């Protein structure tokens, strides 16, 4: 299976551990990712707040580049990119005026978008295309004993929940269980992490982070698993602020791809686990070698 790959700015910046772990895991499963040549920022939520048409045009350039690359599926691991690219595609099909604007803007740089590229998230591809059986076969160090709170956040499942439920998604739960770990019940799995409010309105943002961490701790989770670089950053990097407001609540947050890498026995250096402010120290038990 070959995909056009849209990393997005975060995976090249603060969320680089996500890309570091995603690429070897996908390769290990035989999936080919071809990074989109000269991709640009998707616009995220910030551009939507300034100008919706321009935000859609920014995203559409990437969709057009994906079509030109000849791949019919575009992989977007960042939840915000995934949402914006999907939203643009919806608007392109639903609103003729928006389509006209996008066409005009793309024509100014000799690009065109037909509206076909499917925007997919790795979680969707891994569970629904590759399949849990194929993933189980690659597990050499089952995550036995690790208790994981699966945290999906907002934008992967809302509002364009194409492959899972917007409030009670289970795709990552099934994946994490296939790796041998235990999924703890975590009712806040789609509650907002605060997004950029941690930086802009800390009173509100830090409290939201605290609520998520504290619930994970109360449920006995050893770590939170995320699908989004901003969620990971918020839940990981603000432990000090949470402590000064509410007291110590220490729960590491990892990308689901890092858990996969651990279970597949990939070299730790490849997985970016050292990138977290509060890293996951737990390691899967080394399986005893059966003597023949």
């Amino acid at each position, binding site marked *: 299976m070959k995909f056009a790959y849209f990393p997005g*700015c*975060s995976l*090249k*910046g*603060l969320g*680089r551990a996500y890309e570091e772990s995603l690429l070897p895991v996908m390769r290990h499963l035989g999936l080919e990712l071809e990074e989109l040549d*000269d*991709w*640009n*920022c998707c*616009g*995220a939520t*910030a*551009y*939507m*707040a*300034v*100008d*919706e048409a*321009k935000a859609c*045009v*920014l995203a559409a*350039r990437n969709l057009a580049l994906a079509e030109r690359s000849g791949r019919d599926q575009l992989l977007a691991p960042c939840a915000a990119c995934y949402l914006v690219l999907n939203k643009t595609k919806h*608007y392109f099909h*639903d*609103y003729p005026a*928006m389509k006209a*604007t996008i066409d*005009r*803007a*793309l*024509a*100014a*740089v000799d690009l065109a978008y037909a509206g076909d590229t499917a925007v997919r998230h790795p979680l969707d591809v891994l569970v629904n295309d590759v399949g849990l059986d194929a993933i189980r076969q690659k597990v050499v160090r089952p995550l036995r004993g690790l208790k994981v709170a699966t945290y999906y956040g*907002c*934008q992967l499942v*809302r*509002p364009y*929940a194409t492959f899972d439920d*917007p*409030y009670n998604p289970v795709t990552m739960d099934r994946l994490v269980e296939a790796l041998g770990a235990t999924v703890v019940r975590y009712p806040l799995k*789609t*509650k*907002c992490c*605060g*997004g*950029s*409010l941690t*930086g802009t*309105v800390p*009173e*509100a943002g830090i409290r*939201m982070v605290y609520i998520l961490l504290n619930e994970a701790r109360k449920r006995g989770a050893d770590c939170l698993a995320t699908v989004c670089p901003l969620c990971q950053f918020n839940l990981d*990097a*603000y432990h*000090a602020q949470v402590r000064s407001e509410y007291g110590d609540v220490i729960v590491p947050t990892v990308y689901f791809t890092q858990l996969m890498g651990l279970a597949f026995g990939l070299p730790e250096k490849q997985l970016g686990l*050292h*990138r*977290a*402010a509060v890293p996951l120290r737990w390691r899967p038990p080394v399986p005893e070698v059966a003597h023949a």
Partner: protein
Amino acid sequence: MPATATPAERVELKSGPPPAAPAGSGGRNWSTRRIERTIKYESDRNVGFGRDVMRVPGCEQLENCIQCGTCSGVCPLSIYMDHSPRQVMALTRADFRDEVLRSHTIWLCASCYACTVECPQQIRITDIMYELKQRAIDAGIYPRRFPIPVLAHEFTHMVRKHGRITELVLVIRLFLKTDWFAALGNWRLGLDLTRTGRFSLLTERIRRHGDIARMLDAVDQPKHPSP
């Protein structure tokens, strides 16, 4: 935009510059004991505002709001808002433009789409919040140094120039333009980023970054015909 609130009658504010609420606070500066009437007059309306918003892609369903309050109930940020999302929907539909655009609510929306998914009338509340933010920015109605619109502005500027976002540079610019003192309070965060090999101020840029400005310029069109 004046950053200090001037004691003034609400009605006057329609044409003149709006009062700015102190950033990050509940919005009312009690030290000056501003006393305002608490009911709305017909003359406070900007007739046609609601209709105008409902013409924007994604905002059409606002007309069907039944004021059930589900949006306010599921909103994780409503506890910080001056007007609940339900009230913003009602005020928008009823043409109270100034009150809506001056509300903290539109800025506190974190785009989690919980209200949008849950709304029994299929109103895309998050998209309406986006539209209201755009109008507040266009009208210059927000407190100076209020970080959220400043972040949005810095973000768009960086994308236009480079085609990509370098997150740390963006955050540093945000702090410089809002509250550089707060940046000092985040020294621990900077240390953590350095320790984990994520502290980089090298600007990410695409090869054809000129294309971005060309595309964005091609979009420009009369966007919000004034009612």
